[in-house]
């Protein structure tokens, strides 16, 4: 029988130790994990982005249920351990679950510190420690207006920023004269305060909380100078303390934390401890990096490498508030023999300070530009002598680093294997490179999956991509998904789409302002993308910015190589009649249109129309009932059909009328890229439905729905989504698919690459398996359609919309 390892605590430290153990010595133990929270293992340092709405819970999960199952780990969630019976080597949970152990690992983390003031236990007073706290805060922000955050440290400020992002009025109460005084010096603290105030957060420094008042719930806070600040929500974020209650009650030696030796072993040789609950050489840690270092040692101990030892950690801090760049490491208090190098650029809001002692970096504070934080930290940790580069040290690696990093790729190449790349998950360069080579990883997603590097806050994505490029050489091409939209921003399409919704951004200037665009009004790449995202996300509210649309969508016709345009009227399902054909013939004669061509989508294309003629051409076509065919748009183009059971001797269903119904429902919809559909009346598939974005193939018993096909440069046959029975179902699934694609794809991403990126299963889950999700998507699609199903040709030909577009400037006089 394998020895039994029990872990108390399902948090970052405990599970990190398990991960390391599985890597160092797989299959050695039978592992059982007890977690007090009713959740799988998630990234606690990502609670701030969760609160600010920048991440979802799924985004911050480190190991989902599958991971436990795949590794044969028994997980008890919501099971707090009450007692350790050290004699019997057994733990007992509050709900009565018992587990025997041969080795026990305590990873209980820390508890939020509660100020012992009157009213601290009123309803409406919360801490900021776990997902439930975040849920309470989000709940409060939906119904209440005012929040007070006690504590102007890392945690308190992240909470304040998150609540502000959720629309609350926020006041911060801080005892000390400057914010984050443990990590920042006065100057940086001041810059930070100014930035937070400009975001509408009220900061009260030198403020001492005396009492939380309120009858049945918190109604505000009284300071000892007599000031009262009304509030519906009070967040207590004054610090954390190691969670030692259980260890103490079990007779283990505890001081501030559970005392461990260099091997992470407690006063009981069978019991180890790891993370924020421990005290090592007199120090307790409240940051994530030391916990990763400890976890490594714990894993080696458990794998019977008795020599492995922990010798303490040097830590660094970054504030996780979007748009504020702040880095701090080491010790920057004035001490005997220390020297400062300071750089200030008031205009850019940049402040950098390096504290040196005996030509070695002892501390670093960076505000406004933290790109070199990792470089300084590496030298600090290595105790590197910097005398050779001292003159230019403050200007950063690209200047002082000997020219290597004029090119960021060679800077990454120059890093030692031990250099930390991902601070959130404690992954160093060597580990990433090894993972790439031994597992044959080829994409950012692969690396994230295998090592978690850049999987959390994403700020090291660029570094990881450089490593991929360096390791794989020409074989690596960066994935579209992880690239910024364009040079105007660092954000990816996914980031921007998420933030538009989370922060309720409803105009292009609002997006550019809030998401810190680097150019004044974007470029021809990002503007059309943003315009589409806003059109999609705020139907009926957002005012379409035509100047951000490509000329074809502005002129509602296709520009040709000679500057003339082509006109394609809509023919529903490819059906036409004598009256329409006569009108087209008349228009061709009247305007001397040089070329008439039948398109692949069963429409008629009139080529060589001058721009000034467009409104007149449209007016004549409109008169016979012909409307815009949207052949020019990132929009629903055509629904191609075969004649089906109405005429064909093989036809099994009425594909013609089905096609017309689909086109009537979907026309006018703006989409990330063009969308083509088809309906075939039998499996002979004459309408070529299986190379369309959405293809319907009739069979005897109903309709097969196919998605993600493409007949372009790279031919892709559709995947079968599902089979349905009725026409109403075809319409519902089609509308839901359109909406999912509209909401999730990147601008200019066809359904085929989108499907390959997110996976068919994802689309099935949202549209086939989950009835409610499908109904929601369908309803949302139909709602959006009510705002766009208006013939743009008629608006321009008869209602004078955008008249300037079609006329030359007149000469005066």
């Amino acid at each position, binding site marked *: 029988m394998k020895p039994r390892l029990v872990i108390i605590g399902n948090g970052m430290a405990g599970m990190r130790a398990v991960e390391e153990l599985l890597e160092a010595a797989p299959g050695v133990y039978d592992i059982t994990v007890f977690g007090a929270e009713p959740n799988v293992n998630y990234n606690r340092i990502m609670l701030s982005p969760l609160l600010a709405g920048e991440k979802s819970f799924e985004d911050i999960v480190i190991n989902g249920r599958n991971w436990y199952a795949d590794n044969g780990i028994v997980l008890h969630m919501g099971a707090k351990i009450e007692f350790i019976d050290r004699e019997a080597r057994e733990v007992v949970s509050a709900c009565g679950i018992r587990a025997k152990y041969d080795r026990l690992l305590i990873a209980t983390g820390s508890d939020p510190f509660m100020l012992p003031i009157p009213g601290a236990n009123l309803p409406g007073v919360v801490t900021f420690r776990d997902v439930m706290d975040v849920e309470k805060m989000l709940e409060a922000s939906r119904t209440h207006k005012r929040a007070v955050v006690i504590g102007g440290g890392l945690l308190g400020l992240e909470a304040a920023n998150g609540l502000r992002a959720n629309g609350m009025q926020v006041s911060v109460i801080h005892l000390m004269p400057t914010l984050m005084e443990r990590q920042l010096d006065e100057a940086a603290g001041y810059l930070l305060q100014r930035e937070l105030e400009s975001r509408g957060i009220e900061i009260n420094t030198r403020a001492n909380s005396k009492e939380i008042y309120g009858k049945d719930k918190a109604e505000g806070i009284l300071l000892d100078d007599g000031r009262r600040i009304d509030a519906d929500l009070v967040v207590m974020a004054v610090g954390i303390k190691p969670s030692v209650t259980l260890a103490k009650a079990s007779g283990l030696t505890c001081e501030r934390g559970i005392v461990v030796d260099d091997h992470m072993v407690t006063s009981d040789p069978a019991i180890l401890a790891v993370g924020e609950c421990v005290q090592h050489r007199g120090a307790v840690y409240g940051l994530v990096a030391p916990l990763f270092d400890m976890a490594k040692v714990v894993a080696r101990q458990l794998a019977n490498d008795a020599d492995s030892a922990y010798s303490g950690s040097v830590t660094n801090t970054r504030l996780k508030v979007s748009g504020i760049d702040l880095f701090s490491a080491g010790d920057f208090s004035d001490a005997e023999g220390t020297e400062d190098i300071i750089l200030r650029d008031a205009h850019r809001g940049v402040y950098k300070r390096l504290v040196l002692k005996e030509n070695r970096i002892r501390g670093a504070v960076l505000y406004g530009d933290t790109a070199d934080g990792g470089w300084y930290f590496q030298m600090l940790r290595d105790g590197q002598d910097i005398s050779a580069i001292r003159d230019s040290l403050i200007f950063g690696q690209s200047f002082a680093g000997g020219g290597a990093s004029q090119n960021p790729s060679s800077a990454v190449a120059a890093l030692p294997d031990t250099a930390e790349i991902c601070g959130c998950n404690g992954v160093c360069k060597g580990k990433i490179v090894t993972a790439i080579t031994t597992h044959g990883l080829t994409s950012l997603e692969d690396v994230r999956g295998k090592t978690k590097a850049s999987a959390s806050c994403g700020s090291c994505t660029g570094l990881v991509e450089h490593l991929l490029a360096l390791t794989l050489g020409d074989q690596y091409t960066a994935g579209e998904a992880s690239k910024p939209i364009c040079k105007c921003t660092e954000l990816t399409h996914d980031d921007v789409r998420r933030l538009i919704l989370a922060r309720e951004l409803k105009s292009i200037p609002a997006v550019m302002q809030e998401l810190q665009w680097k*150019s*004044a*009004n*974007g*470029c*021809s790449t990002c*503007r*059309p993308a943003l315009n589409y995202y806003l059109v999609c996300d705020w139907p009926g509210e957002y005012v379409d910015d*035509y*100047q*951000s*649309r*490509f*000329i074809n969508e*502005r*002129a509602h016709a296709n*520009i040709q*190589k*000679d*500057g003339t345009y082509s006109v394609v009227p809509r023919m529903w399902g490819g059906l036409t009649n004598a009256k329409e054909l006569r009108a087209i013939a008349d228009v061709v004669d009247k305007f001397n249109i040089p070329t008439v061509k039948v398109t692949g989508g069963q429409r008629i294309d009139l080529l060589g129309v001058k721009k000034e003629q467009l409104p007149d051409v449209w007016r004549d076509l409109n008169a016979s009932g012909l409307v815009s065919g949207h052949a020019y748009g990132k929009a629903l183009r055509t629904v191609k059909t075969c004649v089906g059971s109405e005429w064909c001797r093989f036809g099994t269903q009425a594909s013609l009328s089905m096609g017309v119904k689909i086109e009537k429902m979907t026309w006018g919809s703006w989409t990330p890229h063009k969308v083509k559909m088809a309906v075939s009346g039998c499996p002979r598939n004459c309408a070529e439905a299986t190379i369309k974005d959405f293809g319907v193939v009739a069979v005897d018993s109903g309709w097969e729905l196919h998605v993600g096909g493409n007949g372009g440069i790279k031919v892709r046959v559709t995947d079968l989504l599902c089979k349905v029975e009725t026409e109403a179902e075809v319409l519902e699934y089609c509308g839901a698919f359109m909406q999912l694609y509209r909401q999730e794809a990147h601008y200019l991403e066809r359904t085929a690459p989108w499907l390959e990126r997110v996976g068919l299963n994802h689309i099935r889950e949202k549209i086939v398996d989950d009835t409610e999700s499908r109904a929601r998507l369908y309803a949302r699609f139909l709602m959006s359609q009510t705002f766009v199903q208006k013939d743009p040709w008629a608006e321009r030909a008869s209602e004078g919309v955008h008249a*300037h577009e079609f006329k*030359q*400037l*007149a*000469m*005066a*006089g």
Partner: protein
Amino acid sequence: MSEWLEIGVIADIPRLGARALTINGVKIAIFRTADDEIFGLEDRCPHKDGPLSQGIVHGRSVACPLHNQVFHLDSGMGADPDDGCARTIQVRLTGGRIYIASGAGQQAAE
């Protein structure tokens, strides 16, 4: 010296947009930036003769509608990495009215 001909008022051109006109047989594009600056270029992309007046205007640049090459409105120069140079046309904005140098057409046609 050339005369200045009035060709319209600033409101005739949408912000971040352009209008075309023909003078002395030459097609000209008049652009308006977000900051209400006015620029003129011959309406012909040096790459494949695309009508620059139909492009997307951003900052002080325009992207040609045919192949998305970007040109600076003030100098006509292609923005890195795009080569080529579109001919600039002298325009003036006074009191909300837009003027063009009367010889602009010939100058561009040469």
